[in-house]
């Protein structure tokens, strides 16, 4: 029987680290290796981490070809305004996807690929489903949505050529205490821009559920796209008030200005976040519940409450003096 060697791209991110930890606990996984341009966020016992920036294409290709993974958990998908600007995020995502997938295919041991994607691939426009399932044709309305769809297409194309199954997990926006998410950061500002003329529903996903879905997809070799969405939703006005923040209504022509002001306040927002605030973002997670057997995904309101409770950390007064 082939030994299961898993490559986790983007292992330095919150999700990549969580997935590596879950894989370490699995007896079915023989080896785990990860790459990213930043180190993992927690201690890993069994997984090997290699600090390789996707911009260093030759090094990344050489490592992946040498490692010859049988499974790729592709988290090398970087959200704009999370840890880098939109252009750098799109560039790193593309470089990481192309290098890791093509090198793994050339190594010849690849059996399965599952890529991180998001509900951003559906976009939002008049006349289409507001709670899309996987049968709805993707039509992104933001550069990040287009990047995610390109990642899915590249992975699916590689899967067809290699004759292997390829999964794509279309996550609802993930926020949490340790997730560098532009939406999470925005919701924790004292005053938050919201749409003046709409208050559409959006779903949120807890990072632990996102990681668990990825590990289940690997175990079950899920083929094709899956929406990973928990029950319930929130709306921008309701979410902002739940956190005790002040909603600031923004008319459609002023979103460009609002984005700049918010960036000065310390929470850069990208077009996909503005799209969520104006048109909402949800999806039907029925197929994932059936296929992955995930019946206890945390509801959006719980994820939101966790996000706000974490923000109420009380700093230790005089801590600096004590250390000195």
């Amino acid at each position, binding site marked *: 029987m082939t030994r299961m060697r898993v490559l986790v791209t983007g292992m330095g991110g919150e999700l990549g680290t969580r997935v590596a930890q879950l894989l370490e606990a699995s007896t079915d996984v023989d080896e785990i290796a990860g790459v990213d341009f930043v180190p993992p966020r927690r201690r890993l016992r069994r997984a090997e981490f290699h600090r390789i920036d996707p911009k260093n294409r030759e090094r990344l290709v050489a490592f992946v070809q040498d490692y010859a993974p049988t499974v790729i958990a592709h988290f090398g998908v970087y959200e704009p305004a999370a840890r880098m600007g939109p252009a750098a995020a799109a560039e790193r995502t593309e470089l990481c996807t192309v290098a890791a997938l093509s090198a793994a295919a050339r190594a010849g041991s690849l059996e399965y690929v599952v890529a991180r994607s998001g509900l951003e691939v559906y976009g939002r426009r008049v006349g289409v489903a507001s709670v899309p*399932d996987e049968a709805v044709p993707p039509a992104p309305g933001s550069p990040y949505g287009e990047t995610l769809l390109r990642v899915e297409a590249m992975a699916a194309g590689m899967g067809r050529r290699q004759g292997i199954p390829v999964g794509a997990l279309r996550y609802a926006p993930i926020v949490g205490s340790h997730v560098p998410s532009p939406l999470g950061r925005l919701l924790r500002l004292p005053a938050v821009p919201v749409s003046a003329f709409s208050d559409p529903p959006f779903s949120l996903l807890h990072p632990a559920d996102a990681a668990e879905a990825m590990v289940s997809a690997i175990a079950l070799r899920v083929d094709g796209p899956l929406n990973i*969405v928990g*029950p*319930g*939703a929130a709306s921008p*006005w309701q979410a902002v008030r739940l956190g005790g923040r002040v909603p600031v209504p923004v008319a459609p022509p002023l979103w460009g200005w609002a984005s700049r002001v918010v960036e000065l306040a310390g929470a850069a927002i990208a077009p996909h976040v503005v799209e969520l605030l104006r048109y909402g973002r949800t999806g039907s997670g029925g197929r994932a519940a059936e296929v992955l057997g995930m019946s206890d995904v945390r509801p959006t*309101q719980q994820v939101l409450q966790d996000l706000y409770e974490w923000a109420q950390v009380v700093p230790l007064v005089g801590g600096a003096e004590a250390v000195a």
Partner: protein
Amino acid sequence: MSPLRSADFGIDSDCIGAPESPSSSLRRRIGGRFPIDQFGFDPMLADLVTPLMRAVVRVEVEGAERIPAVGPAVLVANRGLGVWEPTALGVAVGRALDRRLRVVGAPDVPFLGGLVRRLGAVHSSPEDLGACLRAGHLVAVPLAPTWLGRGAGSPPLDLCAAMMGFTVFPVAVIPGGPLGTPILPWKVRIGPRIALDDSYAPGDPLGAAELGEVLRQAVEGMLAGEVPADPQQTTAGRAVRP
């Protein structure tokens, strides 16, 4: 966990609850402590407006015992050009079963679309209808509107395809007064369950067309005063025992 800290803030998304006092409601609204679902439905707001709806729209219901008390089901009903028929149906279902009704047909326009979604309207797409049913809701699907609300309009075939495999009932909503005026109570007549035979795969276009036609005929018959047969269950083209 306190109801105000739980994910649904202590408000049932399927059963109508008693409205809270104005001061409590206001505090909750200001504090953001109310649930919203993926379709934009706001059960707390719906509970607040339900007494007003019941006061304005009076209804008499026949056959409500056929609707399941829990789980997904579709009510396919006639409608005119306004919103009276879906409103009367929502009031009827609420009175008879205390269940919330989601109505397919939210307009995709700013502000108005968002407002009616808060009260239970769902976007008119097969994907949204399917998601709503999979979530276990009771959903009303209107036939095409008819002039002055006379007769049953044509069935929406894409929506009929999405409801295959779920429990479906034809419903006639009959105005109490001439031209739908609220002089007398509306009559809401719920017919026996309609099911396709098992030979059709879910989403089969021919099956959807047959289901739609049987539903249209059933609604037309009930609007004309026919008393629906019971306890038999009607399938496309023939009647069988449940």
